[in-house]
């Protein structure tokens, strides 16, 4: 594909240097909309947002509006939210229930179910069809544009515009076990999470990649959140969260038999990464959580015992944060949420946040979780307010002609990655590192430069082996 941009020149991941252009340049941005967002698996929503047939939720894929809906057979569809006739958005609501979407401009109408001549989303109504078109319009060819691939993964809905993209589970690789840890019930049984009503959406004057790279494993930004740690908003009072052992310096409270050491785990062939534990096969000791609210603490104690029983000697992991390439991140423990960093121009993004709870948790537990999530996260969250300030001014201070000459430094831990235990194609670093940021941008550059998915298949990638071959550990 012809372009003056050669992304692999901008992302010198082997040296730990990345050009500022990728965070500020409109030209890079225009290309990534096609090359990255046009070919990646993107989070669209959650099935619990559309529980009944014909319920819909209007979401985004990249810059563009899409409609996630459910037909009469309960099958979920995602359509581009633009009329094929003259482009008008066929739905300007955020959510609702509709069997048919009728364009406000010329009243072309589209059926969620389709009919014998039209697929789901198909064109079923055209004013003055016989008189005006006189047989010259083939309705079967002018329906709403569906995504090329769609998957419901444990309730989370993902879509891809590229029919040649690998299937979702191949795309995830072993990152799947960490997404499972986010979506599965706290008692260890598969699935069972639901979204708290209402999706927070807000605009941030920052390139979208700042969010993605922060959540892929920035354990280094302790200074950013020092003020909230001093104020202590955690569910048991102290700090921001209940005590989990992140690393020896950052966390002083250690439970008696802690989980395996947390570190950075990354998937160089896929572009995903997280902070978390490698798989372990026994539950660590019970550690009390939510001690400010005894009813919730009691509930989680019971859940702990169910988890011990349900998982037995099976593999399990813990993951507080991670990013699924390119723009979906999660909080896997406290608070618990999925979010997307939607591109909104080179120097602006729109953040969307879906807060998760176990669907069968008692209302009182859900309420305490909700209150904690809201004081931690989102634009009013005491923790995340400070993140947006950093990403805002990092973006604006990188757009200058002079600043543009100097790449960012991503050299932390470079050459000290090791092979993760019991996870396929994953690298691990126990101490604070930027390994995940490096592999994320390398994967991003591969998407930017690749002509097609033929050059992107994760199973054909040498990235993982190359990093280990260069590593000194």
């Amino acid at each position, binding site marked *: 594909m012809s372009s003056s941009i050669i992304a692999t020149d901008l992302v010198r991941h082997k040296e730990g240097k990345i050009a500022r252009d990728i965070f500020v340049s409109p030209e890079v941005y225009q290309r990534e909309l096609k090359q990255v967002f046009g070919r990646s698996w993107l989070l669209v929503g959650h099935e619990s947002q559309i529980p009944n047939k014909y319920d819909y939720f209007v979401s985004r894929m990249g810059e563009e509006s899409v409609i996630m809906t459910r037909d009469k057979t309960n099958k979920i569809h995602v359509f581009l939210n633009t009329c094929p006739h003259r482009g008008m958005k066929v739905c300007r609501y955020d959510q609702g229930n509709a069997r048919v979407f009728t364009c406000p401009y010329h009243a072309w109408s589209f059926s969620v179910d389709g009919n014998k001549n039209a697929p789901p989303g198909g064109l079923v109504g055209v004013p003055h069809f016989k008189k005006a078109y006189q047989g010259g319009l083939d309705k079967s060819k002018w329906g709403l544009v569906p995504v090329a691939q769609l998957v419901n993964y444990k309730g989370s809905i993902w879509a891809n515009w590229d029919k040649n993209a690998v299937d979702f589970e191949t795309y995830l690789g072993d990152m799947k076990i960490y997404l499972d840890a986010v979506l599965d019930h706290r008692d260890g049984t598969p699935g069972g999470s639901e979204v708290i009503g209402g999706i927070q959406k*807000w605009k941030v004057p920052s390139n979208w990649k700042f969010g993605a790279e922060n959540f892929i494993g920035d354990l280094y930004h302790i200074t950013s959140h020092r003020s909230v740690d001093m104020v202590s908003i955690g569910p048991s009072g102290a700090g921001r969260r209940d005590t989990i052992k992140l690393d020896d310096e950052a966390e002083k409270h250690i439970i008696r038999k802690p989980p395996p050491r947390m570190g950075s785990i990354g998937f160089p062939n896929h572009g995903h990464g997280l902070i978390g534990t490698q798989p372990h096969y026994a539950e660590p000791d019970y550690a009390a959580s939510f001690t400010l609210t005894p009813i919730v603490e009691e509930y989680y104690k019971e859940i702990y015992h169910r988890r011990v029983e349900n998982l037995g000697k099976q593999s399990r992991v813990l993951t507080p944060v991670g990013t699924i390439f390119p723009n979906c991140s999660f909080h896997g423990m406290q608070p618990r949420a999925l979010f997307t960093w939607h591109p909104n121009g080179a120097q602006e993004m729109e953040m969307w946040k879906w807060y998760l709870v176990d669907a069968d948790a008692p209302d009182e537990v859900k309420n305490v979780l909700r209150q904690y999530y809201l004081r931690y996260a989102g*634009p009013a969250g005491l923790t995340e307010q400070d993140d*947006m*300030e950093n990403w805002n001014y990092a973006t604006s201070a990188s757009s200058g002609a002079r600043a543009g000459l100097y790449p960012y430094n991503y050299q932390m831990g470079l050459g000290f990655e090791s092979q993760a235990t019991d996870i396929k194609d994953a690298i691990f670093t126990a101490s604070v590192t930027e390994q995940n940021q490096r592999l994320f941008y390398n994967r991003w550059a591969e998407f930017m430069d690749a002509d097609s998915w033929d050059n992107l298949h994760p199973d054909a990638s040498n990235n993982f082996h190359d990093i280990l071959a260069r590593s000194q550990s």
Partner: protein
Amino acid sequence: MSQSSSNQRSDAIEALLLQREIEAFYYQEAELLDERRFEEWLDMLAEDIIYFMPLRRNVKYGEHAASENTRQGLDAAWFDEGKHTLTQRVAQIATGIHWAEEPLSRVRHLVTNVQVEQRPHNTDGPMEIEAKSRFLVYRNRINDETDIFVGKRTDLLRHQDSGWVVAKRVILLDQSTLLAKNLTVFF
């Protein structure tokens, strides 16, 4: 002047005095916030205050009552909290290292359209009234960063020995996607 018109006039004067008293309360509140006297502002809030700002959604005509705003106590929101968390917000600003408000923003609260509704109240309990107002909150920070928040507040005000306090505040911000990067100001 007849007895009844005299009573009417007396009621009207009472209502006017109450109106004036509540407006003065709001102006004082705005003064404290704009002058960054946050700890004194906290004293204007009841210990059991419910401070709630729902998310707003675009929904079809006829569905506004049911689903335009997220629900207090149940759904996601911009704020749904009590005095403890509000006090923590004030404490966080006072650390001097809360980067979202360090350096401090310049903030002005314009409060208008005050409508006071006297409510029947339990004679055993303190007097409570409902007061609605409109706000325009202006935030300017660093150089060119400017946000304008416009909306409506519906308050439950309670009369205590110390004077009026806010016992409940429902803030409707007139945005669905929040157009500001964060919400570091009080409403």
